[in-house]
């Protein structure tokens, strides 16, 4: 049958075999070499006029020899990076249920406001009289964060979650030192289910780490904490909602026990998205908590950053907040940038970073908060929790729940008990999801669960999207149990690249491009 242009309208005879192409490309999926393989040392994509002759002031320090970097013209650059982008999966591509990472919609309004010249094109050290609007953003963001958490102070400058953890733990260490207990309170309690950053942070700051066991129901028991408390305990680092996706039911008692023992409560706020507008850490007895603006407040993850990790602080810790901070006198904000300038009553423990933190992220997060409003943020948390529990309800007959006794918060945790005997591992299952067009969930974390699969849909998914996701996972689960091993163990089959040899990468690390040696003439 021909259409009116005389072209055939029927698809050609479909071949199931993967036909090799001359280029190796597959239509929209292009094989893209490295810039070092396509660029030339003399090429450039910028037009810069050579300056008139002048007498350099470099002394004996002028560079000798060339750098060894190619350039690309503008069209080549554009094409190279567009092609690379097409090998990536983003939130805008599809459902991205990466537990503990909160891959929610990144509104482009946030990108637009962050690029306003009064925010993006101001220097951190230009006179403060020329940046009152920047201080307004910092103050307004602080007000929102303090209101949402019910905490009286906030240190904005940490650059990401782990940096925020360090900031909070440093404030705790400074408070302990101020009480003269620095030599004795040297141990930090960390549950076994914690993010790796928690023990790493505690160790970074010179604390030793003691593990708190997890109860069989996935929560931390106040008795277990009490049993470990003593004059040597500085703090606990507890994630709430925890990494198993459960709100710690005994959190208030745990906080009280810590305080009674003279210790502090650091809350990892990675999972704050579940409870914004529903519960305030300040009401639960938290002394310090970082907030990942790139999770809860939707600043883009950008392939691994930049993030921002402001830390809210209790009354007891507030005086130790690092510089810089804003000190308001007679309604006028003053930016305190050095320890020496700190007003009376403040004993800043130091400085986390050069300048004032992640302004670009403050603007985005504030834009998000203004857009949502108090009602919208509460609704977002409720929807995030609802979506996770809906997935759980629709999958728990097929996949095994290690902690069925508590409702999930914004993420639902499955283990691999249900895969036993199938020959399919959690990793295989994740890779098969890629073939179905999904980004896998977080796998093998938390460590307390065997073959963990942590699914966090966020509030950004429609019911139709969730239903298709659920149907897909059900199909996969049935297939895994029904002996269709091949669908999993050699997956992904349709991604731009197959499974990669990570052993080889680690045994002989190749961490940069090296010009290949010319092929030697065959001997003889």
């Amino acid at each position, binding site marked *: 049958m021909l259409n009116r242009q005389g072209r055939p309208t029927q698809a050609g005879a479909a071949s199931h075999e993967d036909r090799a192409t001359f280029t190796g490309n597959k239509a929209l999926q292009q094989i893209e070499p490295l810039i070092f393989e396509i660029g030339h040392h003399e090429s450039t994509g910028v037009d810069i006029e050579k300056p008139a002759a002048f007498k350099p002031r470099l002394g004996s320090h002028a560079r000798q020899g060339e750098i060894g970097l190619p350039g690309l013209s503008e069209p080549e650059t554009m094409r190279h990076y567009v092609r690379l982008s097409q090998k990536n999966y983003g939130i805008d591509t599809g459902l991205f249920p990466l537990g503990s990472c909160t891959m929610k919609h990144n509104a482009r309004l946030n990108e637009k406001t962050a690029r306003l010249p009064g925010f993006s094109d101001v220097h951190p050290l230009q006179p403060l009289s020329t940046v009152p609007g920047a201080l307004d953003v910092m103050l307004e963001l602080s007000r929102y964060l303090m209101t949402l958490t019910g905490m009286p102070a906030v240190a904005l400058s940490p650059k990401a979650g782990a940096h925020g953890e360090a900031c909070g733990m440093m404030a705790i260490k400074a408070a302990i030192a101020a009480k003269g207990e620095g030599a004795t309170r040297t141990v930090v309690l960390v549950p076994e289910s914690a993010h790796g950053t928690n023990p790493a942070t505690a160790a970074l700051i010179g604390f030793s780490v003691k593990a708190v066991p997890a109860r069989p129901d996935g929560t931390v028991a106040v008795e277990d904490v009490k049993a470990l408390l003593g004059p040597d305990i500085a703090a606990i680092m507890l994630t709430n909602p925890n990494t198993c996706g459960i709100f710690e039911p005994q959190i208030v008692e745990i906080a009280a026990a810590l305080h009674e023992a003279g210790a502090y409560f650091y809350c990892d706020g990675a999972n704050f998205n579940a409870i914004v507008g529903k519960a305030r850490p300040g009401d639960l007895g938290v002394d310090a908590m970082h907030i990942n603006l790139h999770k809860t407040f939707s600043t883009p993850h950008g392939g691994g950053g930049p993030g921002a990790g402001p830390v809210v602080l209790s009354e007891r810790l507030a005086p130790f907040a690092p510089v810089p901070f804003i000190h308001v006198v007679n309604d006028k904000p003053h930016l305190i940038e050095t320890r020496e300038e700190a007003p009376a009553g403040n004993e800043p423990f130091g400085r986390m970073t050069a300048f004032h933190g992640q302004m670009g992220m403050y603007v985005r997060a504030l834009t998000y908060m203004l857009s949502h409003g108090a009602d919208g943020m509460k609704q977002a948390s409720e929807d995030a929790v609802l979506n996770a529990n809906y997935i759980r309800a629709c999958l728990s007959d097929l996949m095994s729940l290690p902690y069925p006794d508590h409702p999930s918060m914004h993420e639902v945790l499955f283990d691999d008990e249900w895969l036993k005997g199938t020959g399919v591992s959690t990793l295989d299952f994740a890779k098969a999801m890629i073939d179905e067009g999904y980004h896998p969930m977080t796998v*093998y974390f938390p460590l307390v669960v065997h073959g963990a699969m942590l699914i966090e849909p966020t509030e950004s998914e429609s019911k139709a999207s969730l239903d298709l996701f659920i149907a897909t996972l059900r199909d996969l689960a049935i297939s895994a149990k029904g002996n269709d091993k091949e669908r999993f163990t050699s997956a992904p089959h349709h991604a731009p690249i197959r499974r990669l040899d*990570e*052993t080889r990468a*680690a*045994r002989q690390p190749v961490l940069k491009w090296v010009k290949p040696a010319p092929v030697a003439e065959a001997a003889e």
Partner: protein
Amino acid sequence: MAETRYTKDHEYIRIEGDTGTVGISDYAQGQLGDVVFVELPAVGKALAKGGEAAVVESVKAASEVYAPVSGEVVEVNAELEAAPGTVNEDPAGKGWFLKIKLKDAAELESLMGEEEYQNYVKTL
């Protein structure tokens, strides 16, 4: 014949006179997966029983190797630096980690013999 004894953490020590060759068991290498790196102690280092002697890494895990007994490191298997996969291929043979000069042979008694260890592994 040289006697081999095991710890609950899956290190083995093969005794030859007053020295013992330390490595990880076949079970341990299987659990770890492809070994990509081994960090060995300096020759001459004094090790205490149960203290950290070496580190063995796979792509996704890093494990401490503890000294099965106290003593001084007299030799390390430098070949592992270039070929860490030997630990997977031949854990009991070419994949050994270090040789230790025993301080107190009596410490060996607290370790498991071949059969006892194999039974122990079956319970895991």
